[in-house]
């Protein structure tokens, strides 16, 4: 199994402010499922920004897909970004596009043929229960529907790594279970998944997942002793 993400002594500060991430170091193998947990302000979103290449670290080294992204020219980044699916906390749906067009965005950016785009998007929309909302714009979608569009958009191009920032925050428990099941299925198919969440109970849904805990910009348990949670009894598997 190869390493898809590797952080070595990574620190991040915005401008001249204090470091929001300090001494982050971990390794993620291809096909791993990782929960990123921590309270608000712990640095989960900043760490995800580093992972989806919206930010370079202030110090340390990050390797993704076997390449040192800290020294990679910015012209090489779009190709890497196309291998990453991202579900952002605020969804970032494009307001003037329909649900279909929003989901189709990564495929169209990658230059996929339109017939293929249509087939894949229609199939995924049906799967996430949005077939009836094909032509609806984000403004008329509920929070849960918007979140499903965001998730569908993140997974439509079958990314090598899927990053999700609080993906189950605005959906009912049933849909949260379905979405986590979708992530788990993608993970079984080989996609590496990183989910930042407050919902600690979701972690029990993926017994094989590792956990990275952040607290005020620092990793708790840097030695990784606590990253693999103990087995959960079936009775505890509730949302």
């Amino acid at each position, binding site marked *: 199994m190869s390493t898809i993400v590797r952080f070595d002594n990574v620190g991040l500060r915005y401008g001249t402010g204090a470091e929001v991430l300090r001494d982050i170091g971990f390794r993620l193998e291809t096909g791993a499922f990782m929960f990123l947990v921590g309270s608000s302000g712990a640095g989960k979103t900043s760490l995800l920004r580093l992972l989806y290449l919206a930010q370079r670290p202030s110090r340390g080294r990050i390797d993704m897909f076997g390449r040192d992204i800290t020294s990679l020219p910015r012209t090489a980044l779009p190709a890497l*970004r*196309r291998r990453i699916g991202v579900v952002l906390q605020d969804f*970032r749906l494009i*307001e003037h596009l329909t649900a279909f067009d929003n989901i189709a*965005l*990564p495929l*169209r*950016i990658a*230059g996929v043929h339109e017939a293929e785009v249509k087939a894949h998007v229609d199939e995924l929309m049906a799967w996430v229960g949005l077939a009836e909302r094909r032509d609806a714009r984000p403004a008329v979608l509920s929070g849960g529907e918007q979140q499903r569009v965001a998730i569908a*958009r993140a997974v439509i191009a079958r990314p090598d790594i899927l990053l999700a920032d609080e993906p189950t925050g605005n959906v009912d428990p049933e849909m949260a279970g379905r979405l986590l099941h979708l992530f788990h299925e993608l993970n079984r198919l080989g996609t590496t998944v990183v989910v930042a969440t407050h919902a600690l109970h979701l972690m029990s849904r993926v017994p094989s997942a590792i956990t990275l805990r952040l607290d005020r910009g620092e990793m708790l348990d840097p030695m990784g002793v606590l990253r693999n949670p103990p087995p959960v009894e079936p009775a505890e598997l509730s949302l």
Partner: protein
Amino acid sequence: MIAWLQPRAQRYRFLPEGRWAGGALPWIIGMMTFLATLALAGGMALSNGAAALTGGLSRSFTVQIVEPNPDLKREQTAAVAALLRARADLADVVVLGDSELRALVEPWLGSGNIGEELPLPAMIDARWKTGTGDMAAIGEAVRALAPTARIDTHAQWFRPLAGVVEVLKWLAVSIGVLVVATTAAIVALSVRAALSTHGPTIETLHIMGAEDRTVAALFEYRYAIQGLVGGVIGAIAGLAVIIVIGNLLGQFGGGLAGEVSLSPLGWTALAAVPLLVALLTILTVRITVGRRLRQQL
């Protein structure tokens, strides 16, 4: 617009459609194009005029034979004309007829006031084939045949005027350059505003792997259309004004006014102004968007 002409990102409407920059930009570009067209036309026409002044007109001279005896005047005129025509370095030796001489005097004396009894000098126009030759030698040879002859070189009259025309030509070029720079600045400001407005969408496109050129193409397409529309509006207005001025200058007949005109190449250049404006717009947009995007990762 024909779909296949549109960049892929534009066909998929990655950025919202609608009236960017409040719909004012094509009109502003139109006004700038109007000024640029006038400046370009003025520059080219004055350049032609300056070339004529330093070329054909300044190489011309006129021999005046002020002889009161009509028979003697006729003889001397014929002799001088023969002398000039015999020279290989001179061309277009023309003896002005009575009617042409009267036409020259009429503006001062009034039409119909020039009787047969009014003694008019004989006039012979001639032109050096290249440059200006030895006027002193010509004067000496002419005066040997017609002692009362005077020679007016056109260059002595046109030299100060040629200087003014040259200054005006460069003034027109400077105005054109300023108009181009102002247009580029206006487009750049508008693009910056649009980049700020669409910042979150552009960031989302970037996160999904869109390349700079994909984003830039969206803006280039929009602004090229606006530049082309503004360019066509401005150029049509400018050409209309130029045609009117051309007709007014045409009423002067020949001479300097006739030389201040546009060549077919000049008209072609003016017709190409809208395309040049669109290209300027695309270039400005590409530089502005590229600079802004390079500030992001």
